[in-house]
């Protein structure tokens, strides 16, 4: 589904990503874990086309997307739920969902998909006429995920979906991610909460200062001494 091959990314003079490779297979949940500043968000931005790698290739469903613009990548079936939710706060919940469906060409089942999203997130239905900025952090996170679902993605990128949420909401977010994956969407997940991420992921990659230092089956990593010490506490 997604193959990232030896990418290097610079932010101005800063060498943020120093040759990272990983793969996400169809149907999987793959998690990138690592400390702040390890380059997780930069990788997500590069995959979804917001920034371009200096070298290396990214291929999505067999197409090289290293030089494809972000808005075209969305049309190809990749949705990115950015860090910090980034809902359109001055637009209503419904309008946010409409923005999620912006790239879709098939208008036929659009109404059915709004209903699908509302069934999954009943709070959003109640609040569909409310401005997104007036909702709580948890509700905004649900909206950000729902908005991404509206593009009917094959692959969904989630960047720190549990950040700043109360523990009970964190559990809810992770169970939603599992649900979405079960209904056929492949997931690439970046998380600070390594324990939770490794629990739902199939594969995981550990990042340190722009490099992959460890990779493998997620469940096995839960028992890895190195990972335990650094990320599971």
């Amino acid at each position, binding site marked *: 589904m997604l193959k990232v091959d030896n990418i290097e990314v610079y932010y101005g003079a800063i060498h943020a990503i120093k040759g990272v490779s990983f793969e996400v297979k169809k149907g999987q949940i793959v998690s990138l874990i690592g400390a702040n500043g390890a380059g997780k968000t930069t990788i997500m931005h590069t995959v*979804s086309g917001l920034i371009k790698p200096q070298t290396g290739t990214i291929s999505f469903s067999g197409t090289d997307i290293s030089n494809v*613009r972000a808005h*075209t990548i969305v049309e190809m079936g990749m949705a990115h739920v950015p860090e910090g939710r980034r809902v359109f706060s001055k637009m209503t919940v419904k309008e946010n969902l409409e923005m999620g469906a*912006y*790239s879709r060409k098939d208008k036929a089942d659009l109404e059915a998909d709004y209903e699908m999203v509302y069934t999954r997130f009943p709070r959003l239905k109640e609040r569909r006429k409310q401005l997104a900025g007036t909702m709580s952090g948890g509700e905004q996170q649900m909206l950000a995920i729902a908005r991404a679902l509206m593009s009917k993605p094959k692959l969904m990128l989630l960047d720190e979906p549990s950040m700043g949420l109360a523990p009970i909401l964190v559990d809810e977010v992770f169970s939603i991610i599992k649900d979405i994956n079960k209904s056929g969407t492949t997931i690439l997940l970046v998380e600070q909460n390594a324990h939770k991420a490794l629990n739902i992921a199939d594969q995981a990659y550990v990042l340190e200062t722009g490099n992959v230092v460890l990779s493998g089956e997620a469940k096995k990593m839960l028992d890895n001494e190195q990972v335990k010490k650094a990320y599971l506490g």
Partner: protein
Amino acid sequence: MSGFIQQLINGIHVGSIYALIALGYTMVYGIVKLINFAHGDILMMGAYFGLFSITVLHLPFGLAIVVAMAACALVGMLIDVIAYKPLRNAPRISALITALGVSLFLENFFRVIFGAEPKKMPNIPSLEGGFVLGTIKLSYVTVLTVILSIVFMVALQFVVKKTKVGKAMRAVSEDKEAARLMGVNVNKTISITFALGSALGALGGVLYSVAYYQVEPYMGIMPGLKAFVAAVLGGIGIIPGAMLGGFVMGLIESLSKGYISSSWSNAIVFGILILVLLFKPSGILGKNVREKV
């Protein structure tokens, strides 16, 4: 009393033109955070395109408006692509200075081509005369100006609130990166914003030249500045604010001309800018938000 009503009529007339132009300022500011000081010159170009359509192409007045709006929409997009797009990630002051440069360029370009001496906008036969009630005169030009302005403002409001492109404009103005992640082509959306703002500016230009019968290269400066003040007064970046600000400006200008002194009216109008910036910089409809550093 009739004098007062006459001033109100004049104020609403010129105010609706300010409102049309203020919309262009506020839309562009909303989406790229740029005060497009070349926007007053869009009014001037609109007037020239209108004049050209009427006197050279012999088009009917209605069609001349359409031509002027379409031509300015195109020029507006061109200005964005040539002058502002390369500076999208540059400091805001660079784009602002560029806007001043574009303005000077347009004024002098039109001066070289058409000469500095004012051209006369011909009388539009169907617009001559008006309604007279005692000493109060309501010309057809005024009626047309106000009606057209309101129609286009309502249409704009519809576009921004209800259509896909309008929603994309709002999304881009709030968060460009998030909009890209929705599949929005940000540059195209910005171009459309320039096109819409410039088309409204052109309409303002044609209506302005019909009211004052004159077309010259520097005619956009004063109404452009006043419309900018109107946009700030209403709350820059807020579309209904620009409309409100335009009408308020027109009324203040007209009443101060009528009751204080016509030579002081500009000072009063720009004095308002200073007062707004001192006491409510976010404008009438704006919320006071501190800029995040």
